[in-house]
């Protein structure tokens, strides 16, 4: 008798050690698939807020000094407070969605929850892209209306000389616009990649559920 047969004998006497799931446990598994996706949406939104927070600490002092100098300090703080509040609300909403989906035990309810989650994510993305856009536009509008101060502090802080104010401002806005576009493109790409994939999966689950339901 070889070792494998020894293992076989042992294998068959081991059945009682196996876990035992109830009817309800198994039934719930049929619905659970979406909850892990929604959990990821929740985690990623937290990671995102951490990322932006850490990034704001990495901004060089000279840059914050410049915005303080030209009088944007209070406005930027206000914008930040609003932004973090809205972000926080979205994170709470994501968490509520996650809790709801993990506790759901009917297919109809689950489908409704998936639709709600998709909507929340959509609003979140729209909010983020719109605010980034508005902030970039707003700041540049402010720069545009206060060209004299911008030039004054730019030449003080960064020591630019040998260039007229007109030339400098033209260059300045070209760089600003380019930077803004890159920024928006980056944000769009990020959301498309991260949330796009999760939303597509969620949608697929929804379609499957629809089939079961039908």
């Amino acid at each position, binding site marked *: 008798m*070889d*070792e*494998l047969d*020894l*293992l*076989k004998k*042992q*294998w*068959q006497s*081991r*059945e009682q*050690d*196996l*876990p*035992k*799931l*109830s*009817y309800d446990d*198994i*039934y719930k*598994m*049929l619905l*659970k*698939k979406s909850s892990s996706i929604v959990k990821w949406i929740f985690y990623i939104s937290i990671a995102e807020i951490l990322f932006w927070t850490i990034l704001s600490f990495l901004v060089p002092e000279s840059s914050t000094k410049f915005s303080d100098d030209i009088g944007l300090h209070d406005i930027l703080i206000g914008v930040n407070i609003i932004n973090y509040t809205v972000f926080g609300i979205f994170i709470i909403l994501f968490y509520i969605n996650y809790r709801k989906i993990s506790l759901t035990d009917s*297919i*109809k309810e689950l489908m409704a929850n998936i639709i709600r989650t998709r909507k929340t994510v959509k609003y979140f993305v729209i909010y983020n892209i719109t605010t980034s856009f508005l902030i970039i536009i707003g700041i540049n509008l402010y720069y545009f209306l206060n060209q004299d101060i911008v030039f004054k502090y730019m030449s003080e802080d960064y020591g630019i000389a040998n260039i007229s104010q007109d030339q400098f401002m033209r260059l300045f806005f070209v760089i600003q616009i380019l930077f803004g576009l890159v920024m928006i493109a980056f944000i769009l790409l990020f959301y498309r990649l991260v949330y796009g994939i999760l939303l597509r999966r969620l949608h697929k689950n929804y379609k*499957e559920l629809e089939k*079961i*339901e039908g």
Partner: protein
Amino acid sequence: MNKELEHSFVTQLEENQNIVHKICRLYTNDSDAHNDLFQEITIQLWRAFPKFRGDSKFSTWMYRVALNTAITLYRKSKRSIKTQDFEGVSFKISSEDYDDTVEQQLKLMYSAVKDLNDIDKALVFLYLEDKNYREISETLGISEVNARVKMNRIKEKLRTILNP
């Protein structure tokens, strides 16, 4: 809502859940991974269930779908599974039946089986489940001769691992 189908599926899976648990034990190293695989297999079975016509036994059909799921998943994560958790695979043997050396050998054997590649593991699993070569070949979709040849090779491989 197709309540009847759902009920019949869950009832049958509940009755035959040991099969899935055993596959999970063989293909995973901790209880979290075990549960994940169990859930994934459940979902795959449920997806395939409408196509299950009952021309084979539910359990036979289950072996096929469940093993396929485990094999596919295992392939995807092959590179990440490198370490072998010996505690997790520890073999529970009542001490009055076997002496230490036999227990040691079984442990070694079991971890050697776990180290086999995905297909070989499926083959050994069915062998341990006391399936004959005809059933093994049907479940895995290979010829009976091929199953025998593969099985002999695996036995040979295991023997060299155990008696270096």
